[in-house]
């Protein structure tokens, strides 16, 4: 069971929800796909961390074979190649690793070499396996790291996998939710929050993923995100109050469900609601 947690922008509470759901599950996997700023490990403080490098393939030119036809330069949609003074230059960081230049080279002057773009860290915290994806600063795309993270566990695994997605609705988020059995959208109670909620709402509909919303930072009074859900007939999975105590625990990198029984009940109840929703989603025509 793969549960992805996403939101249209950072700071809405993806990590709060993902970390606490993973913590209240008996045995689970927490995957941090927010590879530009992974922070779930700060809460779990995993032990026995193993590090694996993640690399992508980039072209390498054999100058003596290159005849300067520039087919590769013209082919590259990202302009990662230039031909200057009878020499091909490759801009590794601009390359998206499509391999096209190697295919179009009539002289077979291009081969592939590995280039490290980040790493995966695997550790354990109580009964939770913690997988963290880390993209090196300055890299164009973390998608290869997310792919590697998701491949760490087979889809048939029985314990639940909670996926902490990157903010927004771009390629890397799509990759993170691609095989999710269910998506939890976390929303803030503001007009800006509704705009961001709408971005991920459109995404999960486009990718045809079953989903529901968690309303975070709830205060008394009007909640534009709740209104949005009611108008669109979106399942509201739970509500998290805007509270000092929760904020302080969370900013001290504590797992709130482990520190306060009220918060444990809240996330226990959210988890059982989500599990119920996943089983409905898995049953056709229900």
């Amino acid at each position, binding site marked *: 069971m793969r549960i992805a947690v996403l939101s249209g922008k950072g700071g809405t509470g993806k990590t709060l929800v993902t970390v606490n759901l993973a913590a209240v599950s008996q045995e689970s996997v927490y995957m941090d796909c927010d590879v*530009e700023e992974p922070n779930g490990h700060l809460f779990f403080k995993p032990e026995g961390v193993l590090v694996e490098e993640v690399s992508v393939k980039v072209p390498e030119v054999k100058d003596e074979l290159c005849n300067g036809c520039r087919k590769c*330069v013209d082919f*590259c*949609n*990202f*302009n*990662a*190649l*230039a*031909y*200057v*003074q009878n*020499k091909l*230059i490759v*801009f590794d*960081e*601009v390359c*998206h690793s499509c391999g096209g230049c190697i295919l179009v080279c009539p002289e077979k002057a291009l081969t592939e070499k590995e280039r490290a773009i980040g790493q995966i860290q695997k550790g354990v915290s109580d009964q939770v396996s913690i997988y963290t994806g880390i*993209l090196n600063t*300055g*890299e*164009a*795309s*973390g998608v290869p790291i997310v792919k590697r993270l998701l491949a760490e566990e087979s889809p048939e695994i029985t314990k639940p996998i909670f996926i902490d997605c*990157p903010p*927004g609705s*771009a*390629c*890397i988020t799509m990759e993170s939710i691609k095989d999710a059995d269910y998506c939890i959208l976390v929303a803030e109670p503001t007009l800006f929050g509704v705009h961001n909620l709408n971005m991920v709402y459109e995404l999960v509909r486009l990718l045809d993923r079953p989903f529901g919303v968690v309303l975070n930072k709830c205060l008394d009074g009007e909640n534009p995100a709740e209104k949005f859900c009611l108008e669109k007939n979106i399942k509201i999975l739970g509500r998290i109050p805007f509270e000092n105590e929760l904020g302080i625990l969370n900013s001290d990198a504590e797992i709130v469900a482990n520190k306060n029984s009220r918060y444990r009940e809240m996330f226990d109840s959210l988890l059982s609601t989500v599990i119920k929703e996943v089983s409905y989603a898995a049953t056709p025509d229900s």
Partner: protein
Amino acid sequence: MIIAIPVDQKTLESNVYMSFGRAPYFLIYDVETKESTFIDNSAAASTGGAGIKAAQTIVDNKAAALLTPRLGANAAGVLKSAEIKIYKTTAASAKDNIDAFVAGKLSLLDEIHAGFRERGSN
């Protein structure tokens, strides 16, 4: 000697474009013959790597110098490989910068920015 300048419009009076890679046009100017040619910058609408492609255009037009207000690291890499000198523009119009260049009043651009490459957002 041929020099290149990123410009807004296809006239000598045009303003210099604020950056290099995504300028709409390049002015290719021959200092000896005073002949000017305007070329479309095919890199302007690139998904990424606009600076690299634009620099390739400058190289292919056999410019010996580029006059620009700013330049990214990748474009600078291409131009330096081709031993093209990079000068910092000082005036608004292309023409005034050409005059300043001919008079030896432009200094080399020493500040290369890290570029505006997309950052995993698309």
